[in-house]
């Protein structure tokens, strides 16, 4: 390695805490900027759809949210797996920090899906394979979080929720391929590695920008949350300079 930076040092919470803190504003700003551009293109530049009229525009939130819900679950499971394998504290903390954001995106995907389903299909909700498996994903996120809070010992809570997260990862390919494996009311994938895109390029641009924005948002929020988790767990003197000042003043009294 030609670099002088020792990346491994960031596997310790004490070193990662300030790094995360300095990264958050960058990711947050880029997320807001990209979301603005994505929504502008989506709502003002992208053309009206030939079948669905304006109703289709919810796709610019729905699809990125659904992608993130699945992607974040996989990332959470990977961190949980690394945590199990290496007994790494920071990995478990990352897994813990990801769950609420993943649950939020799952809920957002279900909500926007319902709002889209009523004007196009004629139903808020149907029990087809795609919708049902996505609902199960929401329950999985809830399960991971509940399991963690129900066990007082942090290390046991880490392991139990890691096993839960790893087992649940089988649902992700089921969600993704449900529209191919079974006949569903939900339409097939508009964008895929194999078949390319079935959308006009401005629509696709808006959707991909929104996806990137959701990514950056997730990173910013998860880094912020993992910092909270660290402070909460380690009950160490806070590593922030500001907090250190408070500590000193408190100590001086």
């Amino acid at each position, binding site marked *: 390695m030609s670099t002088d930076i020792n990346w491994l040092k960031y596997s310790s919470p004490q070193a990662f805490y300030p790094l995360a803190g300095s990264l958050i504003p960058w990711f947050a700003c880029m997320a807001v900027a990209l979301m603005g551009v994505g929504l502008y293109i989506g709502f003002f530049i992208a053309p009206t759809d*030939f079948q669905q009229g304006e109703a*289709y525009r919810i796709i610019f939130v729905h699809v990125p949210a659904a992608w993130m819900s699945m992607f974040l679950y996989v990332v959470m499971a990977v961190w949980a797996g690394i945590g199990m394998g290496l007994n790494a504290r920071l990995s478990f903390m990352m897994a813990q920090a990801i769950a609420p954001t993943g649950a939020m995106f799952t809920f957002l995907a279900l909500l926007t899906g319902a709002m889209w389903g009523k004007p196009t299909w004629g139903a808020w909700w149907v029990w*087809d394979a795609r919708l049902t498996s996505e609902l199960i994903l929401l329950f999985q996120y809830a399960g991971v979080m509940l399991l963690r809070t129900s066990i007082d010992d942090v290390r046991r809570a880490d392991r139990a929720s890691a096993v839960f997260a790893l087992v649940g990862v089988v649902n992700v390919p089921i969600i993704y391929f449900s529209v191919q494996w079974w006949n569903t009311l939900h339409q*097939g994938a*508009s964008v895929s590695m194999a078949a390319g895109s079935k959308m006009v390029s401005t629509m696709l641009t808006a959707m991909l920008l929104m996806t990137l924005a959701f990514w950056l948002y997730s990173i910013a929020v998860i880094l912020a949350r993992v910092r909270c988790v660290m402070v909460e767990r380690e009950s160490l003197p806070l590593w922030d300079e500001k907090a250190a000042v408070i500590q000193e003043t408190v100590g001086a009294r």
Partner: protein
Amino acid sequence: MKPRHKRFAFIGLGLLVLGVATVLILNAFQSNLVFFFTPTQVASGEVPQGRSFRIGGMVEDGSLVRENDGLTVRFIVTDTAKRVPVTYKGILPDLFKEGKGAVAQGKLNADGTFVASEVLAKHDENYMPPEAAEALAKAKASGAQQSKSLVVPQGRQGSL
């Protein structure tokens, strides 16, 4: 093998076993996981008798007839191989059109007519402005490809 290698191997093996088990379970429940039956399945008697189920397919061009009461509609659902006549009393979704996908819930009559209690429109995964759709329709008239997922999910087309 170091202990951490063992742990990773254990996790990997666990996921593999879990994956295989899931595939087997999903295969066993294959018929319970479909949202609707195709007209071909109706014709070959694979559908549940005497209770409500869903059929899905394309609304045949020129088959939509509105009765005089203004509420009852008749149309034919097809998967290009078989056709099933459907009657429905109620309001159709906006996207319900001839030549587009639809899913209907209801029961099969003795005379082979499907009496629907609910009709849903199924739209496809193509998004484009109306001008592009027109251009595509022209191209289709000269024999170009179109999405088939309206009737049959991809990957199962061969089984029809």
